[in-house]
């Protein structure tokens, strides 16, 4: 990928006051007004995110199900048509190539929603590990909006989408918005009720504006990647590149629920089985900062003056009004209530392992998403 891609909505975002950052080769809105205000809007009413930088890869054909079963840590054969499942794609030693959501469109038809920075890497890996499967990267033709927050269902009803009560978490269906076809999925990355809407890039302006016009009376505001990050961190969802990398396994990241350890049959299984029986040298924990200061990515975590780990993500939680973070620590420091310090500009600040999600009203991932 050369140069910087713009979302097709660049001008609309700009007119709405967006400030942009380059992320995975895309110029995307990081905030429109204030990260904290956008965060609260999502928790209290609804926000809409343009996340069209995310990648989509179609897999179809008689070998698709078996190929995906081998590629992914989550169960594939039991996934019904119209359902979504979260999982990881691992390398041979169990390291995480990407974390994904898998959609089953029909018996032999699936698509994966993948992280923008990993699209080409994933394609190479998928192509070298599939058989009897047609693999098509549709990322550049596909827009993705995330409509998140408690008012999201009402906003969709206002644009003529009915029966949302029957669309459970981790289910999807096709919809029509002003004559534009789209795929509506009850999923998200914010830890609140909401939807993700996949559509053709050609329809993106029209659909964005339609949702917006209907949503304003419900307090709908555009939200940027800044709020997306603080929201997902309150929900303790991992972010690829921070909590997950090719050197870290889904088990170390605490994603056991999304790994078919017993059945196996997927790449990396052998290593993960060993890790599960022998234990991990380090584990991902959620912690709250007790002292004054904000933990940031790569800050050392210390105990009795010795480095026992590093912060992978940290922020000031707008909901809790305190500093929270995720980090990898030596496993014996991973128990709840364990106290350690985060080294903030050479000063140790007290912190304590706590339960996740940090924000308790963030819904737990449902059974449907689990294995």
């Amino acid at each position: 990928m050369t140069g910087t891609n713009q979302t097709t909505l660049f001008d609309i975002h700009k007119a709405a006051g967006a400030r942009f950052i380059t992320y995975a080769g895309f110029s995307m809105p990081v905030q429109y007004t204030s990260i904290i205000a956008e965060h609260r809007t999502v928790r209290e009413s609804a926000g809409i995110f343009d996340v069209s930088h995310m990648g989509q890869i179609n897999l179809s054909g008689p070998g698709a199900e078996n190929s995906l079963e081998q590629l992914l840590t989550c169960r594939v054969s039991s996934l019904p048509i119209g359902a979504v499942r979260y999982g990881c794609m691992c390398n041979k030693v169990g390291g995480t190539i990407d974390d994904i959501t898998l959609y089953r469109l029909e018996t032999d038809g699936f698509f994966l929603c993948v992280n923008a920075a990993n699209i080409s890497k994933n394609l190479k890996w998928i192509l070298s590990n599939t058989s009897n499967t047609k693999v098509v990267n549709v990322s550049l033709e596909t827009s993705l909006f995330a409509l998140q927050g408690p008012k999201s269902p009402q906003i969709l009803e206002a644009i003529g989408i009915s029966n949302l009560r029957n669309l459970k978490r981790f289910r999807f269906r096709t919809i029509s918005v002003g004559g534009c076809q789209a795929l509506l999925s009850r999923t998200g990355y914010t830890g609140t009720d909401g939807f993700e809407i996949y559509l053709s890039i050609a329809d993106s302006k029209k659909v964005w504006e339609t949702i917006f016009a209907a949503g304003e009376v419900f307090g709908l505001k555009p939200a940027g990647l800044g709020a997306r990050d603080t929201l997902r961190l309150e929900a303790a969802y991992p972010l690829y590149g921070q909590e997950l990398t090719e050197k870290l396994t889904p088990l170390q990241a605490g994603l056991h629920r999304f790994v078919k350890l017993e059945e196996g049959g997927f790449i990396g299984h052998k290593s993960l089985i060993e890790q599960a029986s022998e234990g991990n040298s380090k584990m991902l924990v959620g912690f709250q900062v007790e002292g004054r200061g904000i933990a940031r990515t790569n800050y050392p975590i210390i105990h009795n003056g010795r480095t026992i780990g590093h912060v992978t993500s940290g922020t000031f939680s707008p909901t809790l009004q305190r500093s929270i973070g995720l980090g990898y620590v030596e496993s014996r420091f991973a128990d709840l209530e364990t106290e350690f310090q985060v080294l903030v500009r050479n000063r140790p600040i007290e912190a304590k392992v706590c339960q996740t999600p940090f924000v308790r009203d963030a819904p737990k991932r449902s059974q449907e998403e689990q294995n």
Partner: protein
Amino acid sequence: MSNSDNFPKELYYSKEDEWVRLTNDRATIGITFYAQEQLGDIVFVELPEPGTVLSAKETFGVIESVKAVSDLFSPISGEVIEINEALTERPELVNENCYGDGWMLVLRISEEKQHESLLTAAEYCTLIAEREQS
């Protein structure tokens, strides 16, 4: 953003986006409207102890927004005689009123005329207009 209304004429400005208000041998210091807007929601401010002696361009503290961590630089030399304790509990005052309740510290100036090397409001506006274009 470079609207001159956001940059009071009676203040001096540094290229590092701090402002200085001179009152006899005292200098009150804070960050500019432009700086707080660029940072976004400010959630943490770390200031030096009173009695600290600062040289011009020296780091005197840290300001953190939700996304970013930035150093604070003293525009001029002097001894810290007062800090804005209110920012410990309410760092958002810097966003709300950067030239008023969001002030950061007061220095007893140690070098007369040092402020002459700082920018006027008009010069500072030109500087940030150039930055916006680049």
